[in-house]
């Protein structure tokens, strides 16, 4: 039991802080800290800066740019990045398909894809969910049928986050229609410029365009784009979904929201009820952050720590509560969400205009990536044996 970081970890933390605050453009970091949206170009620029410093894909195998860090160091990297306002490396690239290719891919596939994936030369999209396969991936219907050396893909994916930026998409496709539910599924990499791929935007209740439907109509995919073995997709999906321990809980993002609440609270911070609400959220977040630190300290590779579900569950609850706090602070000013400040169209500050869309958008946090009901189920079954 020791509160302080070791001298080595202290030095590590300092090094990270220095890199992030000097090597990533301030304009990008300020936008993140203010809660503004980034352009695709900014996301790419930031990740390339990280990659240049060897800090984009620390979790990968060392030969592909990974770092042999402890879990605590991974955590410090992640937290310092967020504290500095550095956008997190694109998760589809760095914590989803990258590790899968590194683990399951052939040498050829690794060489072809891993360097551009780390450097965000390829922007990956995720093609898992389908209209009838949400929390339950076993209901997948998109098919890939062998035709010579190629696969011919037909079907529809949905909830493809930022699919409009995607260069390539990693998909789960049904390659054996006879096999039981999860057995006949494979992982296929598809160039999104291929004929027959169509991306259709889904507008969300926050007014934004963040997710998409992706339709595949007789899309021909070269055989070498299959990752690992045929019908091994379910194994890879489980690997992918259980891969990430660090950063499951959005501690940094909630912290930023609470800092913002205090900055913009103004006179209202004299209200004891508001102060108590902030103090309570800060204290809940502290408990979450400490639990994150405790979990990373106990993780040593291999299977995900079951407490990841605790982090996801509580993390999204706090994220939603913090967004609700900001929305309440914005009050009627939040109505100006669609106003154009530049043309003198509103006096409402940016944070207040973004408050309601953010609040609405974050309702997704407890649905996507394994809903909070799924997390409770995992806790009850896996940890408590119920």
């Amino acid at each position, binding site marked *: 039991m020791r509160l302080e970081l070791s001298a080595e970890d202290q030095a590590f933390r300092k090094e990270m802080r220095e890199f992030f605050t000097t090597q990533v453009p301030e304009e990008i970091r300020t936008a993140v800290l203010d809660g503004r949206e980034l352009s695709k170009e900014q996301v790419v620029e930031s990740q390339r800066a990280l990659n240049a410093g060897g800090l984009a894909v620390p979790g990968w195998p060392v030969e592909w740019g990974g770092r042999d860090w402890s879990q605590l160091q991974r955590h410090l990297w992640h937290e310092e990045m967020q504290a500095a306002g550095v956008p997190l490396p694109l998760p589809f690239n760095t914590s989803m398909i990258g590790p899968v290719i590194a683990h399951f891919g052939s040498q050829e596939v690794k060489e072809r894809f891993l360097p551009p994936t780390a450097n965000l030369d390829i922007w990956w999209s995720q093609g898992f*969910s389908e209209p*009838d396969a*949400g*929390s*339950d991936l*076993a209901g997948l219907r998109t098919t890939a049928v062998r035709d010579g050396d190629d696969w011919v893909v037909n079907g529809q994916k*949905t*909830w493809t986050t930022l699919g409009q930026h995607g260069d390539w998409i990693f998909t789960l496709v049904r390659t054996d229609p006879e096999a039981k539910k999860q057995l006949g599924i494979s992982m296929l990499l598809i160039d999104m410029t291929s004929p027959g791929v169509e991306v259709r935007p*889904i*507008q*969300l*209740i*926050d*007014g934004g365009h963040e997710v998409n439907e992706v339709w595949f109509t007789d899309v021909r995919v070269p055989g070498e784009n299959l990752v690992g073995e045929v019908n091994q997709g379910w194994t890879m999906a489980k690997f992918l979904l259980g891969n990430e321990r660090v950063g499951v809980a959005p501690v940094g993002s909630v912290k930023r929201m609470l800092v913002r609440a205090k900055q913009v609270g103004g006179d209202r911070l004299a*209200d004891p*009820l508001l102060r108590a609400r902030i103090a309570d959220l800060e204290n809940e977040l502290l408990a979450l952050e400490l639990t994150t630190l405790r979990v990373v300290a106990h993780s040593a590779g291999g299977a995900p720590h079951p407490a990841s579900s605790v982090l996801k569950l509580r993390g999204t609850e706090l994220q*939603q509560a913090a967004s*609700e706090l900001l*929305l*309440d602070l914005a*009050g*009627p*000013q*939040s*109505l*100006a*969400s*669609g*106003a*154009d400040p530049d*043309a*003198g*169209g*509103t*006096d*409402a500050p940016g944070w207040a205009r973004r408050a*309601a*869309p953010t*609040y*609405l958008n974050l*309702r*997704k946090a*407890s*649905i*996507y990536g394994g*809903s*909070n*009901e799924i997390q*409770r189920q995992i806790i009850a079954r896996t940890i408590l044996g119920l």
Partner: protein
Amino acid sequence: MDFTYDDEQIALRDAVRGLLARKYSDFEQRRRQVAEDPGFDESLWGELAEMGVLGLPFSEDDGGMGAGPVEVAIVATELGRVIAPEPFLSSVVLAGGLVALAGTPEQRTEVLGSLASGERVLALAHLEPGDPVTATPSGDSWTLSGVKEPVVHGARADQVVVSATRPDGSLGLFLVEGDAATRAGYSSYDGGRAARISFEDTTAVALGDPETDGAPLLEQALAGARIAACHEMLGGMEVALSATTDYLKSRKQFGVTLNTFQALNFRAADMYVSLELARSTALWASMVHATGDAAATREAAARAGLHVGKAARHIGQDAIQLHGGIAMTAEYLVGNITARLTVLERFLGDGDHLSVLAAGIDDHAALDPIPEPTA
């Protein structure tokens, strides 16, 4: 004490529901409507006028129907069920309500008459992003300076009721022609419309007696609008819950319908509890309002506002959660109801009901919702 509607009230409800169903029973229609300015259907507005809905709360002398808060609540509930974007709450209940409270007989006849007939859309500009708007006498009329925002449906309004600080520091109420001020309209996240309105020595007419303190009248109009907003929320919550239970019964996951999962059913049950308690409080507040007791109405508005607001968060949030991703999409009704509930809880400007009620706990030993006979 009686919580039931009489036959006339039921007929009003059915008529409004029928009219709105023709327009908005297909949610795609509502989406299309709010995509274009002014964000509502002018012809439906006319039909509501013909039905007498736009003059509902005003006296017959003022060109209205002489109905009361309960009838207003009935209409608001129906609008809430289809999240109709028509400005009944902002124009009729709030702005019109303030004119009815504060206007001279001539103003009431003119303004409310044309409001009731659908000729004129009103808006109330009372919220300020910065310094208070000031009013300066200028001959028989006044000039206003400063900025009001957000003004719900402020860009479309033919006439704007404005609160402004008079030279002696008291609050005055004024009427301004819509096009006399600089207006920047925009869409809100619920598809509704609001505006920033800037006054620069803009000519205005005093609403009612220019000496009267406008603050209590404004408070009273806001209280009435809060109670109506609670009913609009109630309508939205009803539909959000029934959509959720329908979804649980029909959507399959893991090979079975979602209502196989007890934890989801229990959450739906908790939503029902919230809804029914909120309904009681909102109905009660409209009955208190109907007694005409201004102080009691303000307190009832705060009580209903606090309680219904909590229920709206609970139901709005859980309706999305129990649906899952589909309720995040703009084309699906439920998430839009949540957005609308979110606006309705906040657009009138104060969310401080709990602080207000906390200040008053020494005023009574125990609350009694049934008034004692006064004589």
